[in-house]
């Protein structure tokens, strides 16, 4: 068929100009964000882009069956992009540009591939539509107009493709007809028509295809399907380190702190908001969403985008904005309560297929509330003051830090004389229940002949909760004080009892110029067992041991195997897994400073997690974190199951099995 080039050229130019203008208007807003260096490690970035974006690793992972559907659509889309580019160029210059001018050896396979992929694409679009209509998952906005518009456009595009090629085959113009099974089938619909009618059909289908294609393109920047443009670069720009290691702030007069207005995010944060596919996986994983809190991580990202689109143009012109980023009440504004509900468990980031970083954004907004407005749940006031004044959450006299060791002959850490510093942490030192864990660790270390010492009353709180709660100013001072002590005392190797101390010392403090060799007790115990330094008789019967992964060990630091192996060494049975385990583990509810806040909305997270554990009929629940220990014991009491089920830290399990 012959396209009317004189008509098509202006259509294409206008469509292209509109598209570029829309993209420009949107992406210009991203540049309002603060700088962030996401260009280092290009090689690693390209590799992860290929693996995760083109390989669709995260889309398919984590048991999301419909991810497979997306994988098919994604690849059809990528390859059909070639066909569609040819289609548009062919429209510009019908006699010069056409795949049909290639040698048959190339053209026939191409024609075949395009034909088959188009039907695959059509099929997956239909599956997607059925899924959204018939079994909509609760964690996405399944029946949104946006989704159906896009799916509809793709379906029509595919049908136009087959109809166009069908008529061309009927016209006898398509030399590759034999290799285009679907278009061939379509051609039978038109077989009886006259040459004139066929010409008119071909013309109509060509224009339908062109208009739908160009509409699709122009609709993209205004829909959630903007991710088609942004998600691949977003994977390229992903954090190459553990994203949860929040960037420090510079405490200089005149600076503002945290994010209270959308342009105070980094450009990458803003780009994230454009890349959200609204797949809802983050919300599906989020313990806060699950237990009925106001927080829904997908909506946090969505609100940032809405706020940027609304306020960005005003900010760009230095005009006053009228919708606050934090405050809530409307789409595009995030309620304070949403921000305080986060446990920083990281489950959302773990599953996000496009590597959106939710936690740093939430913490950045918390920083603004704490540091600029002193607005936070009232329970946090004594917590903040106690930590600042006494360097522990309860405001207990610092000299009591050493009380747990009253009956032991514990040596102070001395560089050169002692190998490890045992950094006990606030829970391990002050909390009556956790002190038993501390004593177990001490016993194990002594049995294994490890050379270790403590800082005693000079030990300070690591500041984990402060940092996650957004009180960066006080965290900054505590980090400096801690790093100074470590440096002054020549500390190199540290054993921690608490995964939060572990993570802070290991991942946060290097921002303050210290690289410590930190080991969590679970890893150390497992190493000691494996190297034969501990002889276990495993006599104590623990019954069915259910294992719970702490967020800050597992997701944050990839420690999954060590505690499981250690339990197995003691009980000679692998521990029982919960449904939500490993990187999908469900938080105990205490992280991110939630330990120090009331939980009054919805179901309590610890109760939910305890129910998940009870579903596995445990006699013992094994944890590796003082927060988890507290939360599980509380949850069990709530379920009146504390008589039947015991919660033990791994150290207690191992200490209980030591040969006497």
């Amino acid at each position, binding site marked *: 068929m012959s396209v009317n080039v004189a008509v098509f050229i202006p259509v294409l130019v206008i469509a292209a100009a509109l598209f570029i203008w829309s993209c420009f208007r949107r992406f210009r807003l991203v540049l309002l964000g603060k700088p962030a260096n996401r260009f280092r490690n290009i090689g690693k970035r390209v590799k992860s882009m290929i693996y995760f974006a083109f390989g669709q690793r995260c889309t398919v992972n984590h048991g999301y069956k419909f991810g497979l559907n997306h994988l098919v659509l994604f690849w059809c889309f990528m390859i059909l992009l070639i066909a569609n580019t040819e289609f548009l160029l062919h429209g510009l210059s019908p006699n010069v540009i056409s795949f049909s001018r290639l040698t048959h050896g190339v053209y026939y396979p191409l024609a075949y591939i395009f034909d088959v992929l188009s039907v695959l694409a059509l099929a997956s679009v239909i599956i997607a539509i059925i899924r959204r209509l018939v079994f909509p998952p609760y964690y996405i906005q399944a029946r949104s107009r946006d989704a159906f518009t896009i799916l509809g456009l793709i379906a029509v595009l595919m049908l136009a493709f087959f109809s166009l090629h069908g008529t061309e085959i009927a016209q006898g113009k398509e030399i590759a007809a034999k290799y285009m099974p679907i278009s061939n089938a379509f051609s039978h619909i038109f077989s009886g028509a006259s040459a004139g009618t066929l010409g008119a059909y071909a013309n109509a289908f060509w224009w339908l295809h062109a208009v739908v294609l160009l509409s699709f393109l122009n609709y993209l920047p205004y829909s959630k399907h903007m991710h088609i443009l942004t998600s691949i670069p977003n994977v390229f720009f992903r954090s190459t380190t553990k994203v949860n290691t929040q960037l420090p702030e510079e*405490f200089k007069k005149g600076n503002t*702190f945290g994010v209270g207005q959308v342009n105070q995010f980094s450009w990458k944060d803003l780009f994230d908001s454009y890349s959200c596919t609204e797949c809802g996986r983050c919300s599906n994983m989020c313990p806060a969403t699950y237990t009925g809190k106001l927080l829904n991580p997908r909506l946090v990202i969505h609100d940032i985008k809405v706020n940027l689109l609304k306020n960005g143009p005003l900010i760009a012109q230095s005009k006053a904005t009228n919708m606050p980023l934090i405050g809530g009440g409307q789409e595009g504004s995030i309620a304070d309560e949403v921000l305080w509900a986060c446990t920083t468990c990281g489950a959302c980031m773990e599953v996000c297929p496009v590597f959106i970083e939710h936690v740093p954004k939430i913490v950045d907004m918390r920083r603004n509330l704490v540091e*600029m407005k002193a607005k936070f749940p009232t329970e946090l006031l004594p917590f903040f003051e106690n930590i600042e*004044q006494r360097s522990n959450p309860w405001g207990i*006299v610092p*000299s009591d830090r050493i009380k747990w060791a009253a009956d032991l002959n514990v040596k102070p850490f001395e560089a050169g004389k002692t190998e490890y510093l045992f950094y006990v942490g606030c829970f391990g030192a002050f909390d009556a229940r956790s002190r038993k864990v501390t004593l177990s660790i001490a016993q194990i270390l002594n049995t294994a002949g490890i050379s270790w010492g403590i800082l005693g009353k000079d030990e300070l709180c690591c500041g984990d909760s402060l940092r996650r709660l957004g009180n960066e*100013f006080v965290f900054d001072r505590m980090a400096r004080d801690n790093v100074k002590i470590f440096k002054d005392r020549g500390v190199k190797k540290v054993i921690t009892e608490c995964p939060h101390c572990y993570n802070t010392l290991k991942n946060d403090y290097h921002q303050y110029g210290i690289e410590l060799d930190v080991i969590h007790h679970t890893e150390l115990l497992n190493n000691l067992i494996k190297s034969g330094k501990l002889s276990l008789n495993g006599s104590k019967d623990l019954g069915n041991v259910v294992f719970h992964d702490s967020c800050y060990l597992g997701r944050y630091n990839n420690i999954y195997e060590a505690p499981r192996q250690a339990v197995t060494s003691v009980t000679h049975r692998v521990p029982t897994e919960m449904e939500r385990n490993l990187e999908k583990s469900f938080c105990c509810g205490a992280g991110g400073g939630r330990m120090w806040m009331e939980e009054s909305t919805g179901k309590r997270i610890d109760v939910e997690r305890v129910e998940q554990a009870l579903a596995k009929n445990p006699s013992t629940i094994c944890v590796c974190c003082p927060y988890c220990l507290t939360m599980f014991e509380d949850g069990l009491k709530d379920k009146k199951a504390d008589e039947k089920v015991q919660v033990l830290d791994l150290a207690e399990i191992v200490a209980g099995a030591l040969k006497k």
Partner: protein
Amino acid sequence: MLVVTFVKQVPDTTQVKVDPVTGTLVREGVPFIMNPFDVHALEESLRLKDKYGFRVIVLSMGPPNTEVTLRKALALGADEAILLSDRVFGGADTLATSAVLAEATKKLAQKEEIAIVMCGKQTIDGDTAQVGPGIATRLGYPQLTLVDLIVNVDLQAKKVKVRRRLEGRYEIVESPLPSLISILRRANRPRYPVVPRRLMAQDAPVELWNNKVMGLKEDTIGLKGSATQVRKIFSPERTKGEILGDGANKPEETAKLLIDKLLAKNIICLK
């Protein structure tokens, strides 16, 4: 108009230990804090500032390191800080302390009209609750002690209305400005300092008023101007009661011991 707020820096008494041999307080290494009552007094002043636009000046008499506490007050929102520090002010009892504080208030009154003088009800180290009344008496201001609510300030009529919390009753009192108010801890929930103010407070000027500035007669201030002198500080022998078990390390066992004890004495019963 001014709200003059007096804050005292005190040792964190929960961390003060008594030397078992000499029976005296061991103050070495004990951190200093703003007297907890004064944190509430300052908060009340800052609320008046927010509501009526008063300027808040904080003053403290003490050794040079008291500056830390004054900076904390600046971080919380005070507009100016003055440190009253001189060797000759040292060793003051309530009489001599209130003498210096009253004179300082007079000096401020020369430059700007004072609406309210704000104090804590008492300190956690001296515990006398006499300094506030002392200042008021010397200045001839009405004194509104034991206040847990400032109802309002009428700037036109130059009056303040407060609620005093007394044993078993409240008392609503109205008084002309300027008045002295001493605040109870229940009056408010203190704010938390925002970071920009903390940074500002780090190197904001803290004015030093020594006796060269104050020009007070040495026999009215410090040790010499004090009617009382501390002879000895000791913790009294315990004549009754006992410490049961080890509550910190063995809470369950200790609770059991306590319950047994109470049962044996018929203070509680099982039913």
